[in-house]
């Protein structure tokens, strides 16, 4: 299960860090600090290149949330390609990332993962991570049957 991304501290503008209180997400594992966005966070958000700028958006909707939007964090790429989201006028976006987390394995990501942004009833944009069946390599590495759609790379 794809469970989050991490960015280098220097990739996120200071005003976004302050506005969203991202300091508490800072993690140090050596070298440059990183900022983590995890599925299990109390406030589940992701960084997203949206409307020409980097924004911090809610990552899917929790099950407890009442909305017409799906209460999930991911969506199949094939569902998007088959028009399953068309009624919500989705926009495909890039979620920048230096690392991804799946079943306890942190793996390097060169650019980012693909996502889809739709708006809820109040007009709040919400991002979902696009996933697809895992490659052989990814399945062996993480033991997951599906993987995020990566931007510009295949692993």
């Amino acid at each position, binding site marked *: 299960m794809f469970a989050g991304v991490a960015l*280098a501290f220097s990739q996120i503008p200071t005003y976004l860090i302050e506005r969203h209180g991202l300091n508490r997400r800072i993690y140090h*594992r*050596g*070298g*440059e600090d990183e900022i983590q966005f995890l599925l299990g966070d109390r406030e589940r958000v992701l960084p997203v290149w949206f409307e020409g700028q980097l924004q911090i958006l809610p990552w899917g909707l929790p099950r407890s949330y009442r909305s017409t939007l799906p209460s999930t964090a991911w969506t199949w790429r094939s569902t998007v390609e088959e028009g399953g989201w068309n009624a919500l006028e989705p926009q495909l976006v890039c979620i920048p990332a*230096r*690392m991804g987390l799946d079943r*306890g*394995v*942190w*793996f*390097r990501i*060169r650019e980012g993962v693909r996502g889809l942004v739709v708006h809820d009833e109040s007009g709040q944009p919400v991002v979902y991570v696009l996933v697809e069946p895992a*490659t*052989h*390599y*990814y*399945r*062996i*590495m993480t*033991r997951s049957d599906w993987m995020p759609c990566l931007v510009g790379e*295949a*692993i």
Partner: protein
Amino acid sequence: MSQEGVESQATTILESVIVYKLCCGGRGLPARGLALAAMPPTKAIGHLDADCFYVSAERVRDGFLKGKPVGVLGNQGACVIAKSYEMKAAGVKTGEPIWEAIQKCPDGIYVKRDFRWYEVLSQRLLDAMHHFSPEVEYYSIDEFFFRAVPLPGRTLQQTAEAMRDHLLHTVGVPVTVGIGRSKTLAKLISDTAKPFGALALLEREDERRLLRRMPVTEISGIAARRAATLAAYGIRTCLELADAQRSLVTQVITATGEAIWWELNGEPITPLHTQRPPHKMLSRGGSIGKATADRQRVWGFVVRNLERLIEGLEFHRVWAGALTLLLQYDDGLESGVQEELLTPTMRFDLLLDALKRGFERVWLPGLRVSRMHLIASQLRRPGFVQRGLFEPPEEPARRLAQLKREINEQLGRFALRSGATLTLNDIYRDQEQGYDICDIRGKICF
């Protein structure tokens, strides 16, 4: 030493080399050759070893990984084939399955291997080394031996340090340099100086202090079995091996052991190979990923490996007189066959015909293939080949091969490939699957 300090020192060394070149005059000669030609001859041998090379190579193009625990995974994503010192400190070992590694090092970052990139950096290291030495042996992708020549006005110790700093500055890869009186000593010296070390030891007493604390298994060519044999004679350390009677060493571990004995005593026996000796055989293959009993998919891998093998034959300008196909099944069974060719060749159609015959003999229906090897042997230079009477016409095949080569050079490796490999589109979509360690040319050691 700080990065700034390293760069400053590297710049000074470069200036020193340039000034030396200018002082020597000599127009018309390549500057590098000029400077080196004027350097005093030396018997000292150097060994340069890149520190955790695959990880360092990843850090060259992704600075975010610096200072973090990083593991490079092999073809299948299952095992750690290289690790950073940070990950090593957490107890992760090379070859360890990723599922054990993440228990020991949950903060580890795992990266897919990219041998094409590692070769690019390896060649850059080789090029940079030629600024310091007239004779460099490309031993493996991350190890080099070289004739150690002191820079003007510098000792060999200072030269080793300059070389190390220069390579970090110009290539971005941290290395360790050891200099000694033989290849074996140089390698042992660099092993003790890691990481990012530089050490020249040329006095016998210094050598003896080093050898005294090193087990014989530190020597290339002495593994557990030979070590056990030596231990029966009370020989456990490198110094004990060096001090043993030569005749005893020869008797116990044969001529290889004698060569090591001489080298440990400062007599260089193994020459520097500045050019790779001609191949006796070429091979391509390895794991095919998920084991499969699908005949078409296995045949696709056979043809894929044949195309890779022909690249090797073309590069080394040799023709194959025989082809061996080995299939390994996931229950441990192996089947293999050698097909003799009518005449040595590198033609795809003739080699494919031979493989088709061989495949029928080694294919075991219902069993899942996990690995394969394709080996070209009885290699001949094209000019020394007796032509056959019944070969199909050469010219159309030659022109087709030429066209294929040109298209792939322009559009990318495997842009044009055999239709038999269409069952492997998932493999070809992944760029990093396209280049393996055995595709790296010129190294002496596999």
